[in-house]
């Protein structure tokens, strides 16, 4: 027999300017029951993260921990930008283990595989999930997913997101135990005696005709329909003048204008455009845009993005056979751009409504991971929801 009493989640958050204090306060709140097995930490990149971890360690000594810096922290209270959110998981029905690999950009695949190694340290239960928190600026994230998948196999869903730095796009942090890491992938394997669900939706729609990627290399797109990619992108979207020459303006504009990559039988994969090279007229994406692929320009609005929120929650909850004990959201920063403050608050309310009273936490990411079928599992511009029962 399993019961919700076997398993618990709890969320703590704090926006105290002092990192150690904030960590301690949030972690104390997150210790919501007996036998804690895992802490997830989502924190503003501007904190002194070592001090933050010290504060958490003081409140929850010896509990395995993974975490990362974000582009906004999510809790039932809403979205904050200078705070820390700590999620505690525990109970006799839940078991967890963690691992990490540094130097991700040198070998993305190995980093994914290394972060997945913790799967060997939890029981081979029917209900397992591997959570990955990665450095989204390290390179092709699908390679990290492939590496993790090579260890986990098709039977274990992958979920997670890329760390953020408040849209500075310079440097992100990952956390493991009491260590603050860069250019790393951290992983947590969770094994439960009750079902676990994963949902992913983007809420974008195609604009105009498809384009062929006629030249690209990994994350850079050089030519679309045999024209300079940047020019075609700006012209087809009728981009404003300042986005045509200024990198910061461009990044803001591109946030709400991703590319959609044609897939066989599922929603197109959305590719977030992160930067433009005004010299060689190429576009940068956070994940691979393969040469020869068919892509669409995409657009979204409040309504379509919020619709996807409900759909992602519903997908995640549909795998459960009872009420959830917690929902964890990995939400793309670009969705925040589309929704604005008001819409973002509405989105968190919707997730909370789907949680039906269970704790809700998460963070705004530079890319999301959700793999339940096949190998492809890296997403952009999506909301990924992990539901624990």
């Amino acid at each position, binding site marked *: 027999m399993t019961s919700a009493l076997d398993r618990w989640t709890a969320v703590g958050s704090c926006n105290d300017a002092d990192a150690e204090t904030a960590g301690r306060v949030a972690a104390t709140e997150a210790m919501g029951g007996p036998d804690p097995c895992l802490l997830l930490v989502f924190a503003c990149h501007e904190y002194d993260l070592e001090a933050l971890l010290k504060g958490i360690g003081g409140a929850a000594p010896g509990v395995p921990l993974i975490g990362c810096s974000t582009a906004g922290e999510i809790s039932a209270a809403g979205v904050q930008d200078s705070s820390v959110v700590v999620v505690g998981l525990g109970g006799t029905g839940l078991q967890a283990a963690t691992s990490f690999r540094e130097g991700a950009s040198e070998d993305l695949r190995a980093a994914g*595989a290394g972060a997945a190694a913790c*799967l*060997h340290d939890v029981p081979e239960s029917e209900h397992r999930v591997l959570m990955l928190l990665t450095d989204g600026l390290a390179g092709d994230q699908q390679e990290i997913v*492939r590496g993790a*998948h*090579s*260890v*986990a*196999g*098709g*039977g*274990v869903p992958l979920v997670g997101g890329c760390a953020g730095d408040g849209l500075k796009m310079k440097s992100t942090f990952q956390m493991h135990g009491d260590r603050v890491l860069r250019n790393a992938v951290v992983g947590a394997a969770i094994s439960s005696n009750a079902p676990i669900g994963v949902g992913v*939706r983007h809420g974008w729609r195609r604009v105009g005709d*498809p384009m*062929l990627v*006629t030249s690209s290399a990994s994350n850079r797109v050089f030519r679309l329909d045999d024209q300079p990619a940047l020019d075609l992108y700006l012209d087809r979207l009728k981009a404003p003048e300042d986005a045509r020459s200024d990198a910061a303006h461009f990044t803001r504009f591109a946030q709400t204008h991703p590319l959609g990559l*044609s*897939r*066989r*039988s*599922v*929603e*197109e994969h959305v590719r977030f455009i992160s930067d433009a090279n005004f010299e060689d007229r190429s576009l940068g994406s956070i994940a691979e845009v*393969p*040469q*020869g*692929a*068919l892509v669409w320009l995409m657009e979204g609005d409040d309504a379509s993005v919020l619709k996807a929120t409900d759909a992602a929650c519903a*997908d995640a909850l549909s795998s459960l056979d009872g009420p959830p004990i917690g929902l964890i959201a990995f939400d793309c920063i670009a969705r925040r751009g589309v929704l604005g403050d008001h819409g973002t608050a509405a989105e968190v309310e919707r997730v909370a409504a789907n949680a039906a009273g269970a704790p809700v936490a998460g963070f705004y990411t530079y890319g999301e991971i959700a793999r339940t*079928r*096949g*190998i*492809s599992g890296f997403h952009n511009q999506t909301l990924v929801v992990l539901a624990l029962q």
Partner: protein
Amino acid sequence: MTEPTPRAANWSAQQLVEFLSVLADCPDRGAARQTGVERAAEAVEADMAALVVAGAVVAATGYPGDAIPEAEIVAVAEGATRELTAPWGERCPCAVVELDDIFEARLIVGRVGAGGFSAEEASLLRGMARVLGQTLRMLDLLDAERRLRAEGEAQSRENERLLRTLQQRQDLLERLARIQQAIVSRTPLGDVLEAIVQGTHELLEQDVTILRLREVDDANVLSLVAARGFEVEALHGIGPIAVGEGAAGLAVAEKRWVMMDDLLGDTSALAEPSDRSVRAAMAAPLHENGLVVGSLVCATRTPGRRYSRAERDTLLAFAEHASLALTDAKNFDVAMHQAVHDSLTGLPNRALFLDRLEHAIARVPRTGKHPSVLFLDIDDFKTVNDTLGHAAGDHLLRAASDRLMTCIRPGDTAARFGGDEFAILLEDSTGQEAAELVAGRILEALAQPFYVLDNEVRTSASIGIVDGVGDADDLLRNADLAMYRAKADGKGRCARFEPAMHVAMLDRMAMSGALQHAVQELQLRVLYQPIVDLRSSAIVGVEALVRWQHPDRGLLEPARFMRIAEETHAIVPLGRWVLRGACQQAALWRRRFSGRFDGSVSVNLSAEQLSDEGLVDDVRGALQAAGLRPEALTLEITETVLMRDTQTTIDRLTELKSIGVQLAVDDFGTGYSSLQYLRRFPIDVLKIAAVFVSGIDGERGDTTLPRAILDLAAGFSLSVVAEGVETERQHQVLTSMGCHLGQGYLFHRPMDAGAIEELFEATDPLSLGLAN
């Protein structure tokens, strides 16, 4: 769940481009194996995939790293079983494709869920396997080269060969990438196939390379599509070959890769029949949607030349790409064709017809030749659909369109516009006569009986003709108007457009509008023409005849408005109104003039009324409302309506007969048929058409037909009424032949009810008694 996204038409080509570019970046064999397996799985969104070489799993994906079920995967690779087990226990169907038969390398891909892999996916996986095989082979060579270098014993010649091979690998991959790009960007098929032949020729350094495809009208013949290694003039000398002939023919016949050496002196076994100096050749079959449609052959004139495995695989890689291009082009063509053709008849549809017509009009200033447009409508097509069913209707349309095609020249266009409407474009028509000639041929062809689902169906068509002055829409509208005129003139004929038809059309529209109100506004009147006993001239019945008192045009005969009434479906309420009025009138007279008038009233039924399901109820209702005995009502149907000879007509008439009313055939003798249908219908009265009655007065004094009708009627015990009796001579002849009833100006014109009543009042009841 997400909605399935429609796959781009050239999806496989895209995937292959992606696959190729990723493999090209792999530094070594291990990376290429793993990448190949993963990317193949990703491309078809599979759950598991593995590469088996010589009985061992060398790369896999979808399994936990430490739990690859090697025995099961190898069993699938060897064909011992057809299913894989997913890590979570579910069984799934899989695809197995061969990379290479040297090492027995196979790619296995499994996907959970029903249905397995589509033909397109299977074809993509074969292409991927081929490219992966090539890559692995070349990487082996690269490894060998590295080893040699490391050992410091590298011989310069060997190194040079290896480097050259490596260069060839690069060349091959680049060429394949270009070909894939060409397919993706819809480069014309001919150009893609030329590029494939060129690539094969150069990369394999052959003397002769030929791509052949099956002839459209003779699948046993393979024609040249592209070739290299011949002088331009010599190309004309390369004839078609038969399936089975030479290496190219054998590859098609046996659906597999073949290699042939020349057997000296045996010309039947020439590797390449087009070039007798060829010493060896190899050929690979080409597929279109899975069917073998041709082959790619390369040949050498160097005696003793043998082909290596690598060369064979190169040829196969090019052949796979040609298959991809052929399939893609075919699917695109089919889609394009479907968009502009009528699915039932295969003829162009309205959109394509308009496009061709516009082109023809645009060419007029250059050629000076005006196109002609024929607009055709099958007469009474609806009756076929209604009585024999839609399957028969479809059958008739297909048969009619086949006949249409035999009547026009190859450069002309026949299109179906939907329903029973067709249009024909005669390009550079050589004048009016030519268009009318074609129209005449079509009318004749369509007048021949059709045999539709065991029924003989006779039909006709009406054709409007217009010459090419004006824009396409004008021409079509005018041709349509002319067709309308042809139909109005009596069906089965053609009419040429005249500007006056516009006026006529407006007139018709005005009439039809006015007719809608005529019934409500009491503009319709019923006149009655007495039917008399020819011996006593006593009135034994009256025929009700409708007239339209048009506010502007005066009193109109039925000929002026009945067709419009039929076309606008005003005929049914109009007919019902006449029926009820006539029954009321007859009942009134029979009461008021009892002893003077005990006869019946005749009411005409149109074809449209006869096919109206409410008719029998209408008749019953009219009789009851008027209190008229059924036998005092005679319903008249024209012979042409009867001649449709359908089960519905028979059923409807039988039902009417069962009420007790009399049934008469109007205008008898004008149709061609005779005894055949009289047996089938419950008829009481034949009315000899006026045209035969007037013939009695003619120079020849022709009495043959009236006599034949009277004999016939006697044989079937039917009454006969002679119509249109105008002269005393006609009266006498008819009486002498035994015809007892008649109507016509000789006795009484049609008159209003008041005038009829005066007649009755003037009648001496005793005279009636004498006559009977």
